[in-house]
């Protein structure tokens, strides 16, 4: 166990900071949101140049062979600067699936483009927005000759509006309880895809797509037929871990803004920072952020692990805590800003809205706690610490 960044990691952090400070600001962001692309090609190219787009992909696939900690560093910085880039969708989700399941040929085609910032991917998976934890997939892929026909609709495709290709999940078998899920690579230009882009509450752009009998060849199948679910779970966990890192970056900025406001704003003849009640509220924000930092590091360290129970446990813990802490931090920041905290004018508003999006994405606090608890039984005995369960049994 080590809690210090390597020199390489530290240099990478500095590079990110320099890039984002130079190319991005809250004003840029507000302009971007109104633009057609809703993200910045300049920042994306900069990230490519830094190697950030290949960092968490394996070297065999053409990535840089980093893992969760590196992805965490990137996302925390994207969070601090409130960048709009589709890093999670393109690199972590879709890129991760190609990395995990792709054939040599598929990797050779897709990864270098992705890493170079020249081709964006997105993962089209979600269908049911009204059932958290519901797993039913209604999109189907049926085989006709050596072709597959995809029918269904996908919602809230992150990064979908600017993606060049989608990885689409579809049901390919259904025997009673058991469902076989397969992944397909689909060109976004295919005219049998009906797409509708719209903004989320933080301004980032997503896409709903309609697959009206899209036909793809056998070379579009990503990974083994019927066997995609564990890989989907894996990249979802990774994405969940790193979106917590993004939230951490967002919270750090919110906290800093709030401390500045407390020090500056005067009421009753004193700076707000002199009121003990407000001090303690600021402290509770700080403690919450430090706890999130701890579990973000923990989740990042486990999210690329092959032990899926350990991974799930760490990721669910991090997301449950991030959601709770994020809500507290946002609410207290607004409250401590008083009326000013309610205005759209302050950059605080943009950070608060992004934090709320993150809360609603990738599982609620309640959902993640339940998932944490159900992964618990399996993982306890694998940990380095042996539980004293046997002793209690005697009582």
């Amino acid at each position, binding site marked *: 166990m080590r809690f210090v960044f390597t020199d390489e990691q530290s240099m990478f952090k500095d590079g990110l900071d320099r890039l984002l400070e130079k190319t991005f600001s809250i004003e840029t962001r507000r302009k971007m949101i109104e633009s057609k692309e809703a993200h910045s090609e300049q920042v994306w190219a900069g990230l490519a140049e830094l190697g950030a787009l290949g960092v968490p992909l394996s070297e065999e696939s053409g990535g840089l062979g980093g893992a969760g900690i590196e992805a965490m560093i990137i996302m925390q910085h994207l969070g601090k600067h409130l960048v709009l880039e589709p890093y999670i969708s393109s690199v972590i989700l879709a890129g991760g699936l190609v990395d995990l399941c792709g054939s040599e040929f598929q990797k050779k085609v897709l990864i270098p483009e992705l890493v170079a910032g020249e081709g964006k991917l997105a993962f089209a998976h979600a269908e049911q927005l*009204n059932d958290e934890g519901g797993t039913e997939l209604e999109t189907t892929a049926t085989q006709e000759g050596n072709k597959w026909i995809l029918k269904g609709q996908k919602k809230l495709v992150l990064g979908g509006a600017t993606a060049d290709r989608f990885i689409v999940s579809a049901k390919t078998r259904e025997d009673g309880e058991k469902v076989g899920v397969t992944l397909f690579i689909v060109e976004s230009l295919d005219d049998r895809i009906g797409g509708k882009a719209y903004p989320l509450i933080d301004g980032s752009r997503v896409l709903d797509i309609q697959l009206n009998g899209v036909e793809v060849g056998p070379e579009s199948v990503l990974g083994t037929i019927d066997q995609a679910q564990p890989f989907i779970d894996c990249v979802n966990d990774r994405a969940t871990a790193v979106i917590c890192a993004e939230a951490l970056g967002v919270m750090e900025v919110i906290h800093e803004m709030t401390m500045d406001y407390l020090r500056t704003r005067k009421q009753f003849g004193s700076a707000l920072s002199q009121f003990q009640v407000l001090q303690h509220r600021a402290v509770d924000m700080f403690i919450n952020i430090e706890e999130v930092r701890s579990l973000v590091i923990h989740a990042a360290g486990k999210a690329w692990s092959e032990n899926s129970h350990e991974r799930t446990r760490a990721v669910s813990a991090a997301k449950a805590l991030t959601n709770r802490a994020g809500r507290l931090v946002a609410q207290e920041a607004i409250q401590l800003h008083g009326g000013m905290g309610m205005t*759209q004018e302050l950059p605080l508003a943009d950070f608060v809205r992004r934090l*709320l999006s993150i809360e609603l994405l990738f599982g609620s606090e309640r959902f993640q706690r339940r998932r944490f608890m159900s992964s618990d039984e399996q993982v306890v005995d694998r940990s380095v610490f042996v539980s004293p369960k046997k002793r209690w049994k005697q009582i």
Partner: protein
Amino acid sequence: MDINFSEQEIKFSEEVRDFVSQHLPGDVSRKVLEHKRLDKDDVQRWHVALYQKGWIAPNWPDRFGGCGWNSVYQHIFDVESAALGAPRLSPFGLGMIGPVLVAYGTETQQSTYLPKILSGENWWCQGYSEPGSGSDLASLNTRAERKGSSYIVNGQKTWTTHAQWADMIFCLVRTSSGARKQEGISLLLCDMNTPGIEVRPIVTLDGEHEVNEVWFQDVEVPAENLVGEEGKGWSIAKFLLSHERTAIAGVGVSRRELVYLKHLATVHKFHGKPAKEDPVFMDRIAELEIDLLALEMTVLRVASGEASGGEPGPEASILKIRGTEIQQRLTELQLEVVGQSALPHLPMAWGDSWMGETPGAIHAAPLAARYLNHRKTSIYGGTNEIQRNIIAQRVLGL
């Protein structure tokens, strides 16, 4: 002591239900129940209906056109009408300056303004907060200088709700610089059409326009628009703020939103089953519902003491704190139950004319904005921290 409704009270509640069902315009009710955007005319139509019925001013004395309801009747009206989707009336005339004029106004002021408040002809807004004076309201800087038979007002007010709809504004202004900052504050009534007044919208967190800055540049206000004595505005301001806090508990609306929350829990699912079958979620709803029941009983207790004893005491601060906390928790749980469905940002979908589809459920569209908007409740009307200070000092004597 008897906590059961009497037969008359039950009859009255039926009367209210009947009236609301018949006279509340259906489109207004639907907007309210579905959290859509209301415009001035929506509220006005309901205002006029109540005015015609004689139910417009529950807590004004009879002789000024009030209903003369006791606090239980007021509560019944609040809950029953809210449940059926009645919009909140603008509080600034009926709930704030009206009672002030009843208590402190000259006969001319009373006869000039009160009837127009009742009829809805005049809408009011409130000029209290300033950029430099939020919680520390008494530090306000807007100045009014006496010049002949007028005051000349210069300065800036902020967070002025619905100034864009208002015909009149009541303002706290500084008429002299006394030793204590509370001294030298006066209350002025001012026509929003007076030259020199400019209203600038403030867009809030949720992207909506509800509050404003109001700028005064050499605005001439007739001296007869001074309420009470010059320099004695602070005690009037406090009278008004404590009135505001009782109404702010918002039990009727919270009860309606709780029912809506439970409805959402039958429509939305967790793990393939209706959310209402999720014990963890239902435990949280139960906790909220119990807190709301406690608030409701506290409102009735405080209000009945008020009826027997005069103006509401600092205990009303409890109602402000808990009422707004409950309102906020309701928005959080509504957001939780719809989950990802609330992510799409489609402000057009909560306008009335929207006929399109939404990626999530249509009723989910306004819930994130609603959550963000309701963060204001623990800030306005005296922050909840200020309320705790008030209780500590004036109730507990700390």
